[in-house]
């Protein structure tokens, strides 16, 4: 099976600074679920940026949907991005739009008919428990509500690849588990899911997930098979 994404000896640097990612190599199969773990500054967000096409690698090769993203024409990127859903660490909600319009944004960009947009968005807002806040602006929402809104926007287009950067950072444990169930459900329906997190307690909820650990920009678990790093309590994966 052709991988959905493949990293080969990938390096990334911002400007002339030192590399934030070094010699990254792994494959992401279609329909798989992967946790990306590591301390703050380990390079999780930078790796996600490569996956959601915010950056091109400065060396090595990243292949996504069969395209070498270091060489793919800029004009082709929007279509590729529409196959990806992203939950940004800082949410990146659009302040002047209501919750409803924020969630509707990917569908409207894709040109989905407005009747379908309305039905889908209402269903999604109901799922994340924000129906009553449909007309609220993001800045009037709590941190948890904003996070749920960001997740709703990321999954509304039923993306082939869902990337989530610390998606449970601002929600209570109960909501965190609920959101994780949403990701699992999407994964079950065929979406490839990558979750960057330092919430190790979430890992046992997805036993089949591959775990990729980053440390100072380098992979410490290239095969994804190290499930019990030293110091982790028995029975947990971290």
């Amino acid at each position, binding site marked *: 099976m052709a991988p959905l994404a493949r990293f080969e000896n990938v390096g990334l640097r911002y400007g002339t600074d030192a590399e934030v990612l070094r010699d990254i190599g792994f494959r992401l199969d279609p329909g798989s679920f992967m946790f990306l773990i590591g301390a703050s500054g380990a390079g999780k967000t930078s790796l996600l940026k490569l996956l*959601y*096409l*915010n*950056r*091109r690698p400065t060396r090595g090769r990243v292949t996504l949907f069969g395209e070498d993203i270091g060489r793919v024409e*800029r*004009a082709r*990127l*929007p*279509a590729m*991005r*529409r196959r990806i859903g*992203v939950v940004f660490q800082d949410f*990146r909600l*659009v*302040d*002047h*739009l209501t919750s409803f*319009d924020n969630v*509707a*944004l*990917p569908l*409207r*960009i*894709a*040109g989905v008919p407005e009747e379908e947009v309305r039905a889908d968005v209402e269903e999604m807002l109901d799922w994340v428990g924000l129906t009553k806040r449909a007309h609220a602006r993001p800045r009037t929402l709590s941190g948890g509500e904003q996070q749920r809104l960001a997740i709703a*926007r990321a999954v509304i287009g039923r993306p082939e690849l869902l990337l989530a950067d610390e998606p449970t950072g601002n929600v209570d444990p109960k909501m965190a588990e609920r959101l994780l169930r949403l990701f699992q459900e999407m994964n079950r329906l065929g979406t490839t899911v990558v979750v960057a997190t330092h919430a190790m307690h979430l890992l046992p909820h997805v036993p089949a997930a591959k775990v990729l650990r980053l440390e100072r920009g380098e992979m410490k678990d290239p095969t994804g098979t190290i499930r019990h790093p030293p110091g982790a309590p028995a029975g947990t994966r971290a």
Partner: protein
Amino acid sequence: MIPERYQPRAERFHFLPREKVTGGTLPWIVALMVLLAVLGLAAGVSLASGVWSMGAGLESGFTVQIVEPNPDLKADKVAAVTAILEDDTEISGIRVLSDADLTALVEPWLGTGNVGEDLPLPAMIDAEAANDRALARVRQQLDASVESARIDDHARWLAPIGKLAWVLAISALTAALLVLAAMAAIVVLSVRAGLGRHAETINVLHLIGAEDSVITHLFEYRFAVTAALGAAVGFLIAMALFLIIDGLLAGVSSGLAALAGLPWWGWILVLLVPVIAVLLSVITARITVERALKKAL
């Protein structure tokens, strides 16, 4: 207000906040620029048209002036000159100016009723030469046979004025183009300010799959509406000024002012100014946005 169905998708769904472009000042800037460009162009075209009309009249015209204080001798010389002119087949439109014509020419300087019979006025004969050779031939004949007859070649006297008018006309046209260029520069700055103000939102739109054209069309639409509004205001003010100037020119019955006036093609050029202003705004906005967006991945 433009109906929603005619708006680009990005405007209809408020992808960027609805706001007045550059805080609402751009329509007034465009209005001022269009006003200046229209006035500059109209002045330029009017002057050029006047010069051309003048040139056409002067191309072949000349006047024979006979300075002779003795009335009897003057009459003889007029008859001699007229005979020479009439004998030449390439000379036409021969007209001896009457005493009344001569008085009318002098009165603006001396005052009405101040031109008496004791004032010796030269005799003047207007005529038209088919070409330069005919004029040279007549000049030679008059020099040889009629003492004190002098040919006054209109074009020779008025040529420097014509050149000056041409320079003024070209300067006015250049000024009109520079005004439109300045407007385009202001549009560039406005677009860049808008892109900077909404950089974060534009980045998010890109990351969730928006093509550059989504953003570009939104800016094009906003600047088209803004420029159209400003251009309409500027053009209407210019038309009002035209009416006033036209009324003032109607009272001027001589010189270049009488010849000045917009020919039909001048009106087309003037009508094109607001259209060009809107198109220029839209194209400038598009190019500026496209260039800025291409800098990002």
